[in-house]
């Protein structure tokens, strides 16, 4: 069985995994990180989206063994010390979730979108989130939330010190992805 060293939400793991085991099943079954759900297992719905070295990936289409030497961030690392990440705060305040099943993936995909484009317009948000399905909200409030989060994150970036708590390090734009980082967002 392949042997991987992977950092998930700031914690280093040294694990044997079945070669065919999907990342999302490794996260859920082996690490107990059930905050990331499975929606379709065919890469269409995006519910299982996580960040791999800061870039969004659908964890049902990545093998666990492919994460060797990489850093994974899930929804569970977004908040810290009881402080919500701006994307979480925005989803809450904009009522951008109903059942909440798509929400972890939607937020992680939105973070990747905002890293590429910190000030997207509505159409850019809609197209940027095309890989993530929601069946409850009709997306209206998700678009609002991403805009709200973008504004909050831009304001935060403009204020001297980048946020150190609650933001995965790879979300700070200047910082390069750091495989095997010893401290993550958690």
């Amino acid at each position: 069985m392949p042997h991987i060293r992977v950092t998930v939400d700031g914690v280093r793991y040294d694990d044997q995994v079945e070669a065919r085991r999907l990342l999302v099943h490794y996260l859920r079954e082996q690490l107990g990180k059930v905050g990331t759900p499975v929606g379709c297992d065919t890469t269409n719905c995006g519910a299982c989206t996580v960040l791999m070295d800061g870039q969004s990936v659908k964890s049902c289409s990545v093998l666990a063994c492919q994460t060797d030497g990489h850093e994974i961030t899930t929804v569970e690392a977004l908040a810290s010390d009881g402080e919500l990440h701006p994307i979480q705060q925005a989803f809450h305040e904009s009522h951008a979730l109903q059942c909440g099943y798509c929400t972890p993936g939607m937020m992680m995909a939105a973070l990747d979108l905002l890293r590429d484009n910190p000030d997207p317009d509505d159409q850019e948000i809609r197209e940027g989130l095309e890989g993530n399905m929601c069946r409850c909200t009709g997306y209206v409030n998700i678009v609002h939330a991403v805009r709200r989060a973008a504004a909050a994150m831009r304001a935060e970036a403009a204020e001297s010190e980048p946020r150190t708590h609650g933001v995965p390090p790879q979300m700070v734009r200047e910082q390069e992805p750091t495989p095997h980082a010893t401290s993550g967002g958690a």
Partner: protein
Amino acid sequence: MTTAPEAPRTDQVGSPRLRKEDARLITGQTNWTDNIQQTGMLHVAFLRSPHAHARIAAVDTSAAMKQPGVTAVFSGADFAGEQGSLPCAWPVTEDMALPAHPPMAVDEVRYVGEAVACVVARDAYAAADALEAVDVEYEPLPAVVDMEAALAEDSPLVHAGSGQGQGSNKAYVWPFEAGDVDAAFGGADVVLNRRYHQQRLIPAAMEPRSVVCRPEGDSFTLWSATQVPHILRLMLAMTTGVPEHKIRVIAPDVGGGFGSKLQVTAEEVLALLLARRLRKPVKWTETRTEGFQTTHHGRDQIQDISIAADADGRVRGLKVDLLADMGAYMMLVTPGVPVLGAFMFPGIYKMDAYSFSCTGVFTTKMPTDAYRGAGRPEATYAIERIMTELANEIGMDPMELRRRNWIRHEEFPHTGVAGLTYDSGNYEAATDRAMELFGYDGLRAEQRRRRDSGDPVQLGIGISTYTEMCGLAPSRVLGQLSYGAGGWENASVRMLPTGKVEVVTGSCAHGQGHATAWSQIVADRLGVPFEDVEVLHGDTRVSPKGMDTYGSRSLVVGGTAVVEACDRVVEKARRMAAHMMEADEGDLEFSAGRFTVRGTERPATTVQEIALAAFAAHDLPEGTEASLDADSTFDPENFSYPHGTHLCAVEVDTETGEVDIRAYTAVDDVGTVVNPLIVDGQVHGGLAQGIAQALYEEAVHDADGNLVTSTMADYTVPTAADLPDFTTDRTVTPSTTNPLGTKGVGEAGTIASTPAVVGAVVDALRPFGVRDLRMPCTPQRVWRAIAEARAAERSEGGQR
């Protein structure tokens, strides 16, 4: 004694409170059924039929048993003596065919995906692997895919072998008639006949179905991604013979339902039976393709509708003849879905006569059942489409035609031709507001310009002035319709010694925000802080009585039970307050959580102080129990009737067939609004699903009965890029049938939007001679309709 807190706000109802539910959903601290782990838990995988129709000649499980990690392998025959038949709660006619529906097929399979065998293994991967080693010998039988072909005399039978199919694929005929239909049609100036197709849809909740069952002695705890834990417990007991009081059903966090989790499924029954047989906890979670194949589908009707009217547009009568595809079996409310729609075809319009008939048809496909709106979207689609066609036929603006026929606001309450009494409504107000927001006249002017200039991009406008029957349902009416249960809802409200409040509700949320909305209601009613209210639901041991969540019923019926329980708590508190304050009950005033003695300056006693006094019980008035709590079971007298006006403008590229929604305006009247944030969200999501039926989604079967659209790549649930922003607003005409004045909002958007969108596409293409389009209106269908209309025009020109 606690000190009296400051008077809390009492204006929670109507305020856009952010949801209590969100905290765990946005942080990943969720409790989906698939997250549940139990010590020693085994995983189940089902082997499913690759044939739409076949006899099972033999099932050999021996090789699968030898696979690594496999604990057990069973075929349907292994459970034949105990698995019973999956329940149908709605035998709509006395002679309805009700064929046996074993959770795992024993002799015959009747749709692709029907469970034939199952493997139980140490993990899900091992279980899936071992499925390949199960050997099933099938003798294929003819598939029955098309409803009309299924009714032909020489059609193969779906249920020939069972002897329960009445010798045809006709499951039932349900007729209804009111008024003199022949007279209405005979004397009319205009009669229009149309045939509309409601394509088959897949509900596609984001959370796949999942079930976990744990045996505990002779008792069982079953977690399921269900909308209906109470109905599920009852039906599990009736199906398997495990006594009801030995079954606890828990619906933990549930990721959307839209009707698809209003079901008693084969996998839930088998999880219980496997846990009993193996004495181990078991889990099963569907894959998405498995879900698309085997979680019930929705819609799938052919609607023949005729309307009769005078030359001035007054509607005289309506005739509806439906074929409804049941699929292979009758599931929980399969036959009842079109019957729910029967009362809604007349919509908001007055007319003299109405006849309806529905023929339920068996096919070798996944059974249909409730999907968001359940019967009512189908009815609304047909009436709203044909009203616009009628307007076109007599050369009248489609909104003007509606105005001439709808129930005027001063005519409420109004009993319509279908026998329903609409308690309240104001169609004029909603329509005026919608037309203003939409810019109706301006868009009509633009449409004329584009038509005149021969613009390749044509503009179309669609209208839907809908109503729906919600708040399911008066138990008396359900009884008259042969439904197997009532439509009441239960709540209990208990004040804890510290003044906090627990509210137990029998409704069961899966995204609707009950915890927030119910907290708002209770905060107002008891005068306690919103934050001090905890809403408990979704566990038959915590909330022992309930009828669950569907049919836009939770707030209207369940919310009313909460209101009544709160009022009873206040009445109990009043007796205690009078005793504590040494005042006469009649002299007490209750406001914002405080009792005061009328006309005096004496300090108030708060409901929290009374809760503590009740707990201490040191000095209670004679005959008073030491608790401050109350129960209520509310059974509505009538349905509620949300309504509204939806307007859609589409741009249709006549060269590519592409449809782009340019503007969508929805003005809904859902009565009193408890939380506008939640209401807007429900409308948005409903619109998305209704628009999806109009433009994107269709469950397609091939001639052999295979579901061709079995992944999310093929069944095109719209993404953010496929949908527009919406303009939404409300008018408020409170319902008179419940104390809050609420009407329900969960289904409104879905019911209203489909005819508005398709109507707009047809309107854009009317100059080409297009009068109808099959849903979904894909670019290919739109392009073909234009091409065919042009070809027809050319050939007519050639003949001249």
